[in-house]
């Protein structure tokens, strides 16, 4: 029975937080890591995609133009216009840039040459969520003025005056303080946990198949490697969904910041 319970882990190093540490490529430049290279390449790819799609537009679209128009109309109609209403045009460039940047950087996680989502490094998510925080607060202040904006976000219409002492700190914490934290952590942790899941199935399966002797372990390792394909499929779904969710929530925060009182 002992071979059924491989408690002795042998030389296997379980993937963990250290799997996300990559040394800088050059000793003199600590900021130039693998994440930075991936992000810069993604910006170049996205720029090339949109520039090529926007060039030579015809009334009857070619196949390439059709792809670009579908991607554009997806963000424009089902995210920006649904969430922001009639003044969605101001924020459409921001939403399209955010969506394509996050989508490409998430999809790096299943792209065979990179296999590491850039957004699994929390700094990128903090940066994007911080930018969104400045933009939606700035949009609200520009629309209503500082006091008008603070009053609208912290005191919803229709709250009786004797509940204000409870509602104002709660709404302030939830709308100003917690929003950027959850926005960044949601994206980061989804990518982090997803990449860790892939690592567990692939590295663990490989170790069981190659470096372990009992035949039961080899079968389990082979099954784990085959099943990792399904995990990649799940990751494809989660990565697209998180890019969508981040953009939708950005649009919703802006929309709630610039909304008139009902």
């Amino acid at each position, binding site marked *: 029975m002992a071979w059924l319970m491989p408690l002795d882990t042998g030389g296997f190093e379980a993937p*963990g937080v250290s799997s996300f540490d990559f040394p800088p490529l050059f000793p003199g430049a600590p900021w130039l890591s693998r994440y930075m290279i991936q992000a810069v390449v993604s910006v170049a790819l996205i720029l090339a995609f949109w520039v090529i799609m926007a060039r030579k537009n015809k009334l009857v679209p070619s196949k390439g133009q059709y792809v670009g128009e579908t991607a554009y109309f997806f963000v424009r109609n089902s995210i920006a216009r649904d969430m922001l209403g009639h003044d969605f045009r101001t924020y459409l460039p921001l939403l399209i840039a955010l969506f394509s940047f996050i989508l490409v950087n998430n999809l790096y996680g299943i792209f065979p040459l990179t296999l590491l989502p850039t957004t699994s490094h929390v700094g990128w998510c903090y940066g994007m969520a911080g930018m969104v925080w400045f933009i939606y607060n700035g949009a609200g202040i520009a629309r209503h003025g500082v006091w008008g904006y603070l009053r609208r976000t912290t005191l919803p219409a229709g709250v009786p005056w004797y509940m204000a002492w409870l509602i104002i700190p709660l709404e302030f914490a939830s709308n100003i303080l917690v929003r950027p934290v959850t926005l960044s*952590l949601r994206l980061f*942790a989804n990518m982090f946990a997803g990449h860790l899941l892939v690592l567990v199935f692939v590295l663990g399966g490989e170790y069981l198949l190659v470096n372990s002797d009992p035949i039961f372990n080899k079968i389990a390792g082979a099954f784990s490697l085959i099943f990792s394909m399904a995990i990649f499929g799940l990751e494809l779904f989660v990565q697209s969904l*998180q890019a969508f969710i981040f953009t939708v929530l950005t649009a919703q925060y802006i929309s709630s910041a610039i909304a008139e009182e009902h």
Partner: protein
Amino acid sequence: MLTAMELTGSLGIVGYGLGAIGPGIGVGLIFASVIQGTARQPEARGAMMGTAWIGFAVTEALAIIGIELAFVFG
């Protein structure tokens, strides 16, 4: 033959397992309502799915923050 099992590891992962119960129930409730709504009014499916994804993301954030805390305190 089989000696008493010695398990080593982080208790934070057990805590995460407990913490994932609530968001699991929440996400289940969201999609149960979507299925029910779609069965009653199939043409409203698109509008319901849009709201459901946002609700799903907000609920799932609890479980996701839990897995991070399991790493932070683990």
